[in-house]
């Protein structure tokens, strides 16, 4: 995937200007923020809390992976995707985007910037918008968030 110019949201830019680094969850919708905040609030100082956080976030990631499989299954009904997949089995656009952008997070770019970039591409790049629906971007954002949350609180896997 070609790299595109990053477009930071106005809010993120303002926060950065005032020296406030955006939180891990600040790029999410209010409903998603509430959902992930519950997971983020689980402490990881003692081993039982750590286990609880590990178990709940792994279960959350399993649900996102099931959703991924289902989203991908629906994309099989699109002629272009089906034909492309037959040529390149084992790969799908969603996984590739997730992999690509998670590397950006690991290289220190705040997750909210990455998520606002992804949303922004849908309005600035017609090809990207044709391949990824708003629901699919929301799915990618949730998956990046749970992986980032686990990495931040438990360390890299």
């Amino acid at each position, binding site marked *: 995937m070609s790299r595109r110019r990053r477009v930071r949201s106005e809010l993120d830019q303002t926060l950065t200007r005032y020296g406030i680094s955006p939180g891990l969850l600040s790029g999410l919708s209010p409903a998603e923020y509430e959902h992930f905040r519950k997971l983020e609030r689980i402490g990881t100082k003692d081993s039982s809390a750590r286990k609880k956080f590990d178990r709940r976030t792994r279960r959350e990631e399993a649900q996102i992976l099931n959703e991924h499989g289902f989203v991908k299954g629906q994309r099989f009904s699109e002629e272009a995707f*089906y*034909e492309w997949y037959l040529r390149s089995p084992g790969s799908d656009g969603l996984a590739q985007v997730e992999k690509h952008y998670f590397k950006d997070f690991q290289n220190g770019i705040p997750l909210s910037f990455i998520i606002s970039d992804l949303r922004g591409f849908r309005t600035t790049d017609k090809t990207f918008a044709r391949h990824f629906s708003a629901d699919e971007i929301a799915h990618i954002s949730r998956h990046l968030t749970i992986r980032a949350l686990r990495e931040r609180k438990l360390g890299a896997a």
Partner: protein
Amino acid sequence: MPSSVETLALWRSLVRNPRFLIVNGEGFPWGFNVKGLGYDIDVRNLPVFTDEELVQAVASKRDIAIPTGKLSDNLFDAEFDIYRTLGSQGAAQKWFAENLWRLEKLGTVIVRSPQYGFHVLGFSRSDSLDLNAITDWLWVVEEDNRVFPDVIHFTSRNRPHYVILPNDNNGREYLTSCRTIRKI
């Protein structure tokens, strides 16, 4: 390995009005795919095959399949390509040997593919999937974070998704002893 007659009988006991499809294989510009049907179908106008034609198809080394979704009482198929996520078919075989008990705990029909992936079959209670309930159900296998579904096949507006059924000569088999399909 089940015979084609046994497979047809089993699926008639599982699905009220099964619409079997013959899988002929299909040539694409980039090569031949044995899993392609080889003819055009539309969910509103499915072909009807007689038992004789279905048995004959298997005898001539073709496969028979059943569509997922509304056409088969809301059947869904969670496809796990563990030979890919674990790195090799050998690693997948080892995983099966060590984790068959996990698959048995799902209490449903599970089909192993020739490449050593597996398909967990379930019926959805409605024409949409409850992914929360499905995650709770599949947790016994997905607890191992290397094991997750590649694709969940369910409904499709135009091109139906389908499950290729095991027979004597297609390298597929029923993995567990269970012969009923769990409703989720």
